[in-house]
């Protein structure tokens, strides 16, 4: 992350200077900083709401019940958290919300799982295998119905916007499984957490 982040910024400055767009780069810096806080404030309300609802789901036993059903799958994906109903339940809710296209609800649920994973993390500043797996599941963007894309197609006057649903589903499932397999392989290649954090 250190390299990629500094690469993005350094290259921007160099290329911006060469292209004579340095002014734009500076403006982008300022507006980008503003945007990032706006995004955070934008998700704050939803975050507060869903974390409240999640607490209710947790207290009433729904999270635990969900995790019981999914234990076999979860043990394969997240061997580190074996038997931790809270984490597995949160992950299950995060996945379901993603699949239904409820991104607003999915993020707080995923963050709740992250929070629980951090509690049992050996090195608090580096990502555990479970965290990387959760990230892999989330960055792959698995969803049953690409609602936003369909909405754009509709607004452009597509004759048959829903025809992309099945192909998209095939691709997103493929990428999702690919992400999980990749995370599993990377676990073996990368040095374990306690020795060095790695990049």
């Amino acid at each position: 992350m250190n390299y990629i982040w500094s690469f993005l910024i350094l290259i921007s400055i160099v290329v911006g200077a060469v292209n004579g767009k340095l002014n734009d780069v500076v403006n982008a810096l300022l507006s980008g900083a503003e945007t990032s806080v706006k995004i955070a404030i934008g998700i704050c309300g939803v975050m507060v709401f869903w974390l409240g609802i999640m607490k209710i789901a947790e207290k009433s036993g729904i999270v635990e019940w969900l995790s019981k059903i999914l234990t076999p799958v979860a043990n394969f994906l997240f061997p580190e958290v074996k038997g931790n109903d809270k984490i597995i339940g949160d992950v299950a809710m995060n996945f379901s919300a993603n699949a239904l296209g409820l991104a607003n609800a999915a993020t707080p649920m995923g963050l709740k799982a992250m929070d629980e994973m951090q509690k049992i993390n050996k090195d608090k500043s580096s990502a555990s295998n479970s965290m990387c797996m959760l990230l892999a599941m989330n960055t792959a963007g698995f969803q049953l119905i690409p609602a936003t894309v369909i909405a754009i197609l509709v607004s452009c006057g597509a004759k048959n916007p829903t025809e992309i649903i099945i192909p998209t589903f095939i691709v997103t499932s493929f990428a999702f499984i690919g992400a999980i397999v990749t995370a599993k392989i990377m676990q073996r290649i990368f040095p374990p957490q306690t020795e060095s954090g790695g990049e």
Partner: protein
Amino acid sequence: MENIRHILDIISVYALPSIIFVILLWALIKKVPVYETFVDGAKEGVDVTLRIVPYLTAIVVAVAMFRASGALDMLTACCAGFLDKINMPSDIVPLAIVRSLSGSAALGVFSDIASSNPVDSYVTKLGAIMLGSSETTFYVLAVYFGSVGIKKVRYALITGLIADFLGIVGAIVVANWFFA
């Protein structure tokens, strides 16, 4: 097809309210003090949001600068020559690159593709599949790791990018198969 759309509409309208309804109802049956519990859990939300800010700023600023400098266009131009060979229209290239970096940019690029090409063309459909099957890797990374203060991401980023790449390849293969 009309039926499918009808079902989709129902799902998108009912999914969220039903989840809330079921959770609340079940909690009441279980005699959970719902209001107190809600407020208790919700309190954490503000903290989490604040914790994310530095991580989000870091990545959003870097990506914004990268785009504004013209470096992203250059990267796109570099890749275009190669990607033409694997039957990937050059219109799609910016989308493939940008979708890991910025969600709003990807949406913008796709809207562009959809409006500058015939809406029922192969390019538009490929773009739709590509966008619909992806999530903004850098954003997810910033938010998830930011919320718990993880600074060393280990293999999470490379895994996300490999998955993105698989998604791009998959989208091209499947679009060829369905629509070419």
